């Protein structure tokens, strides 16, 4: 796919030439980020990978400087965070960027994942690329969870208690695992210490997997809104300057939204209880995780029944374990969708039924998020159960089935061709018809 990989080095600067002939990093940069041919029809959903990269960098940099002032000890953690807020030069700025950055990271990554699901970016030949992405999501969740524990407020403490207790649902060895996770008999100083250590380590693991994610992307090339492979140079544009500039513009818009949160509503996405120092004797009236975990939290609580053999009273899976399996399963299932989806067509644009299933999935996840934010009682439990059911139905049943049953719309012959004919083309998805990006 690489059109531009010519033999001799194209560099004039002698130092660059010297380095490049020994370690071709400059040639690689030119090849992978300069000439790298990208489909010409990306829409703005394709900005979110670059945005995620930017947030990751911002998180690592602010986190590094915050760690210089933070003390990972139950007696000092809360106070050291307040010292950062009040006395460290620009400490409040770094902390608010870091705290809101976590939320921004998840917003960006959720949209990025939606993009992949909607346009079929997980399908052959990009299975491995997708799997790396799911691994990144899991690592992000672990990192965010442990980071939230560090300020050692009430929500930190009780969030850590509740989430680590999930592992006690594992049959036979559950309690031993939880004790091992804690390093004691409750969430305490050893727990805080190891969470800090891992919270520092995992982002660099994420960087590693992101590298693999991007490397895999550069082998297969990018998917695009039409979901068909480029047929030749007329279908692609060099990554620079076209997409570098477009990504920069997108990141400008993104940073404005980010800044609005940091400077004008820094605690909007947080929880008031986390400004109360951790107290192992008092559980807050209403424990909720950070917003990005709410859909998964709702799935955890949706399993309110034991699963067993009907009419016999034999329980195979208790409700507690069932909830844990469901919650983790909701991520694990993503590993397999490259094979669960049997459709020959990638983009939901050309899949009239699947398209609506996709939006239903979005709706289910948003509703699950709402359920997760509310006390688990009454009608909301049923709603959460229905949404959870749909979530798994979507991946485990609809994906394999629709691929066989659905009649896709005719695919355009190439990326550059159908633009000329588009006005007459049939019923396109609401999202995709909206003006193809720029001046067309």
């Amino acid at each position: 796919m690489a059109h531009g990989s010519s033999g001799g080095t194209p560099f004039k600067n002698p130092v660059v030439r010297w380095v490049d002939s020994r370690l071709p990093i400059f040639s690689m940069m030119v090849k992978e980020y300069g000439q790298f041919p990208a489909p010409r029809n990306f829409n703005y959903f394709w900005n979110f990978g670059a945005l995620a990269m930017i947030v990751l960098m911002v998180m690592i940099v602010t986190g590094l400087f915050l760690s210089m002032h933070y003390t990972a000890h139950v007696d000092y953690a809360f106070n050291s965070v307040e010292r950062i807020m009040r006395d460290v030069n620009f400490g409040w700025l770094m902390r608010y960027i870091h705290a809101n950055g976590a939320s921004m990271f998840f917003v960006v990554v959720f949209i990025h994942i939606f993009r992949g699901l909607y346009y079929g970016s997980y399908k052959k030949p990009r299975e491995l690329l997708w799997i790396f992405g799911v691994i990144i999501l899991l690592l992000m969740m672990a990192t965010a969870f442990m980071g939230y524990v560090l300020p050692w407020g009430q929500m930190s403490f009780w969030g850590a208690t509740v989430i680590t207790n999930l592992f006690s649902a594992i049959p036979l060895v559950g309690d031993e695992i939880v004790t091992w996770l804690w390093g004691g008999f409750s969430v305490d100083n050893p727990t805080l210490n190891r969470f800090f250590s891992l919270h520092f380590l995992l982002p660099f693991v994420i960087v590693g997997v992101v590298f693999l994610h991007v490397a895999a992307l550069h082998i297969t090339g990018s998917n695009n809104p039409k979901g068909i492979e480029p047929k030749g140079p007329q279908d692609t544009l060099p990554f620079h300057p076209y997409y570098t500039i477009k990504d920069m513009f997108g990141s400008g818009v993104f940073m404005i939204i980010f800044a609005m949160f940091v400077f004008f509503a820094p605690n909007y996405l947080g929880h008031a209880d986390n400004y109360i120092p951790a107290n192992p004797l008092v559980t807050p009236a209403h424990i909720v995780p950070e917003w990005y975990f709410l859909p998964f939290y709702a799935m955890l609580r949706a399993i309110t029944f034991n699963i067993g053999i009907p009419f016999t009273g034999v329980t195979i899976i208790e409700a507690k374990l069932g909830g844990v399996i469901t919650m983790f399963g909701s991520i694990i299932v993503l590993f397999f969708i490259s094979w669960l989806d049997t459709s020959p067509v990638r983009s939901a644009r050309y899949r009239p039924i699947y398209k609506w299933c996709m939006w239903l999935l979005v709706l289910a996840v948003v509703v699950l998020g709402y359920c997760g934010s509310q006390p688990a009682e009454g009608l909301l439990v049923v709603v959460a159960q229905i949404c959870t059911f749909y979530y798994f139905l979507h991946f485990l049943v609809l994906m394999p089935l629709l691929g066989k049953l659905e009649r896709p719309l005719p695919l355009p012959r190439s990326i550059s061709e159908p633009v000329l004919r588009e006005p007459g083309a049939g019923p396109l998805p609401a999202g995709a018809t909206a003006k193809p990006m720029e001046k067309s």
Partner: protein
Amino acid sequence: MADTTDSDGHTGTRRDFLYLATAATAGVGVLAFAWPLVDSMNPAADTLALATTNVDLTGVEAGQAITVMWRGKPVFVRHRTQGEITAAESADLSTLIDPEPDEARVINPDWLVVIGICTHLGCVPLGQRTTDERGEYGGYFCPCHGSVYDTSGRIRGGPAPRNLDVPEYSFTSETSIRIG
């Protein structure tokens, strides 16, 4: 990558200006983001607020000395004997490595207040206790590389380039000083 068709030069200039302006703005933005991070490593407000130390001198007899912490560093406060004062005041300035008269280094000649950190590489010199090695000028002796200071804390021999630093301090009463 300036290979897009450039039909007239005028457009090109305007476009180049736009690129330059954008790149400059981006550069300013990155620097503006970097500064708070760099500045966060400077002393924080609570660290700066602890920058004064009060020392009670009652009970420190002539010939005795006390060491107090100020900004995380030892400060030597020595109640000098008459002999030490005379030795400090009578030193021939032209023979000094870092010439400075004794009266410029003390407020009350009875009391020598210096930061107890060798100006060579930051060790703490000996000489506060009467049993310490004090060097041939009776002041301080640095065990690391053999710098020798006199009873005014001035460098008289060895590798150190400067006299021991005198912190900012003032007498809040006859018998107490505030450092910083």
